[in-house]
């Protein structure tokens, strides 16, 4: 069971306080979008073996959503950050690169 730190209230707590919301940084496509765009938004997921950016909500705590970079193989948590961003912050990307030189990067 994972140990997570919520960047919104600073609490480090076990996974049961949180709920997972799937892949982070999805771009919403609404009316007027093509089928391919809509499909990418709704259904296509990276599901990587390795570095993954994902959404979490501190459901039993402060109630806030946040984003997190985590390794799906080693379960290492590279860092958590505010949900109000469209891409991972540079310091977290740097940290991942340092830990996983072979990582192909975000995108």
């Amino acid at each position: 069971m994972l140990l997570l730190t919520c960047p919104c209230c600073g609490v480090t707590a076990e996974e049961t306080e949180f709920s997972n919301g799937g892949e982070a940084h999805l771009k919403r496509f609404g009316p007027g979008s093509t089928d391919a765009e809509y499909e990418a938004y709704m259904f296509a997921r990276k599901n990587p073996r390795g570095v993954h950016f994902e959404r979490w909500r501190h459901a039993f705590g402060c109630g806030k959503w946040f984003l997190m970079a985590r390794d799906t193989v080693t379960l290492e948590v590279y860092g958590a950050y505010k949900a109000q961003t469209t891409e991972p912050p540079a310091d977290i990307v740097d940290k991942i690169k340092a830990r996983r030189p072979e990582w192909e990067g975000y995108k």
Partner: protein
Amino acid sequence: MSDAVSALKGARASGMVELADAGPTGMITLRGDLGVLGGALASVLGLSAPEQRRVVSGEAGEVLWMSPDELLVVLPYDKAPEAAAALEAALGDAFATVAVVSDGRALIHLSGAQTRDVLAKLMPVDFAGFETGELRRSRVAQVAAAVWRRSDNDWSLICFRSVADYVFASLATVAKPGGEVGLYR
């Protein structure tokens, strides 16, 4: 309001700790910028916005930090509607929300030297170094709750009204004599 009845109807239990329903209690949820909310609290109740995961206490009541943009004011039940109206007026055009939630919550007082041991049986929380005036939102067994420390041996716990019986019964069960653990000494 003489006919207001708390969810726990004055329940009490004794064991490793004393458990008591706090009875009808006024509560006001405030949403908005904590600086702005703090200003209104100061002018209306003489209170202030607490730091992250802390509680501010004063003559008028307590203010609980619930999230980066949410506070909960705890005060006497009858005072809540007028305090809410005054806070709303003080906040004026600011982007903020005031809502009376007195009736939607239950407040339980726990007291005794073993309170942390009892809480640790139901809450996945590290209570070492948990200070007076500190607050933690988490879960009690299977439902959400917030707990804060009022003094060395006095704690308050807040949960939703509908699950008050469940929370109280769970606390009373794990606080039964014979369950001493001596984890927090």
